[in-house]
């Protein structure tokens, strides 16, 4: 039956080559697959060694995918208004089938992603992988780190409970003190900054964390920040390839 199926035109149009274990097929497996062709066909052996890369970049990306999927599901049940947000959370935790599973996974994966992105940076530093030719990819990485933190921070507000509103209050209170641009920052008042026109006001959409803040953080969390992060990730992965794949001791070999 399966053999018959394999001969049909439909099957052949989807799967272009057989699974025979030849060098050529192994290569085709990679280049003919839209997901796998991010990879080179062959890599140096140490690049497949988990104790070299720690796998943290890949895990960060996997967690990002998990977050995207669970996040989209959460969006079906969540309305970003002060009136409904908390109610929707309760509903999700108590009445939606698998609601707690989805929400928990979104929460824990977000924490885990912050953790793995930090460890990834630590590894990249310790192997000196930011050195030429990978300087710019490190800079892209730093932007991704900042984006990861901002994504996590903006998501923290959305449950609209005591934990979220006060954590975000503490966090955004810093913006009051921005030099020049905050109403309590050095030279801020001298430049005409007031509580109702400084950077914090722009961030919160008000003088305190309130319903407009919820909407702002929601849009930032679900649309703006992920979009930017995806763009930078595309650049990041592309650059890993273009900079010659995973770093290795090329220079040391020559000595």
């Amino acid at each position: 039956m399966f053999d018959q199926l394999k001969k049909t035109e439909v099957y052949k149009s989807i799967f272009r080559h057989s699974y025979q274990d030849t060098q050529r097929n192994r290569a085709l497996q990679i280049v003919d697959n839209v997901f796998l062709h991010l990879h080179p066909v062959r890599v140096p052996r140490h690049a497949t060694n988990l104790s070299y890369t720690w796998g943290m970049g890949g895990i960060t990306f996997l967690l990002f995918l998990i977050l995207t999927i669970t996040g989209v599901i959460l969006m079906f049940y969540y309305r970003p208004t002060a009136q409904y947000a908390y109610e929707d959370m309760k509903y999700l935790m108590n009445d939606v089938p698998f609601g707690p599973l989805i929400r928990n996974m979104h929460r824990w994966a977000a924490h885990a992603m912050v953790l793995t992105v930090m460890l990834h940076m630590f590894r990249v530093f310790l192997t000196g992988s930011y050195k030429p030719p990978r300087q710019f990819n490190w800079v892209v990485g730093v932007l991704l780190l900042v984006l990861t933190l901002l994504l996590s921070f903006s998501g923290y507000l959305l449950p609209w409970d005591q934990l979220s509103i006060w954590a975000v209050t503490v966090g955004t209170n810093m913006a009051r003190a921005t030099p020049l641009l905050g109403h309590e920052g050095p030279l801020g008042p001298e430049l005409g900054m007031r509580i109702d026109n400084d950077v914090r006001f722009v961030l919160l959409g008000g003088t305190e964390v309130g319903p407009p803040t919820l909407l702002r953080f929601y849009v930032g969390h679900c649309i703006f920040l992920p979009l930017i992060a995806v763009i930078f990730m595309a650049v990041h992965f592309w650059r890993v390839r273009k900079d010659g794949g995973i770093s290795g001791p090329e220079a040391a070999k020559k000595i």
Partner: protein
Amino acid sequence: MGQFLEILSKPDNIPIVLLLLSVIYFTWLYWVKAKRNDMATVPVEATQDDKVQVWPYLVRIEFLMTIAIMAVMVVWSIALDAPLEEPANRALTPNPSKAPWYFLGLQELLVYFDPWIAGVVLPTLIIVGLMAIPYVDINEKGNGYYTYKERKFAVLTFGFGFLIMWVALIVLGTFLRGPGWNFFWPGEVWDPHYVAVLTNVDLSEYFGITTRMPDNSLNPLAFIFGAVCVGGFYSLGVLYWIKNRNTDLMQKLGLVRYSVVSFLFLSMVGVVIKVILRLLPTAFGLNPVKYVWVTPWFNV
């Protein structure tokens, strides 16, 4: 002790426990690998440079890792519920009010610095400083393999910044800072009414210069004293340059790169000094230092 275990095992604090354990593990792993490479003539990585097929040798690892991580996430999500507290209420401030865990290092620095430094300037310097690393580190060695010997300054500086100033402060802020952001040892009960009685003084007052005149205006002498302290501290970088400018390393580094490195490095050291100035005097029954430099516009 019960309360400490309770804080330790709060679902939202699991990541910090994981952070601590994984950072210790990976630092150890780095150390083992770096030592081995430093003792060998060529790094281990250089002996593994034969090419292998990505399919199956890399893809299978990715596949297994994906399954493992998914399994961990599912178990974690079934076992522990994400917190959902009382509905948001502006009239009810919890004590302590803490930022999300990854910002607790910065919140800790609020003890020692005004918000414009701890909340705005330092994060900016961290981001800019991280981005600058590849352009100011001109050491060609240690690219693509683990080593300590060949890049001691880089590893020690980054290691200190990441492990102590970032990770350790997060752990401290999560587990040892209680109500009123007061310090509590593990096992001590978080007493919401505890008030630390400390009279902070400015550094100049240790030298007999009062910060305020009797009419409460700023004492110009104190202003100058502070400016000399801060300026003098950063000019250490200039002195070092003048003394070592003819060495090969400095010539290769160039003035621009050197300025960036010395400014960022001294800023990090400065943060540590300010922390010490605040904490150390209390050990001798003296008053902690509040500001090093008071000006009409900002205080350092």
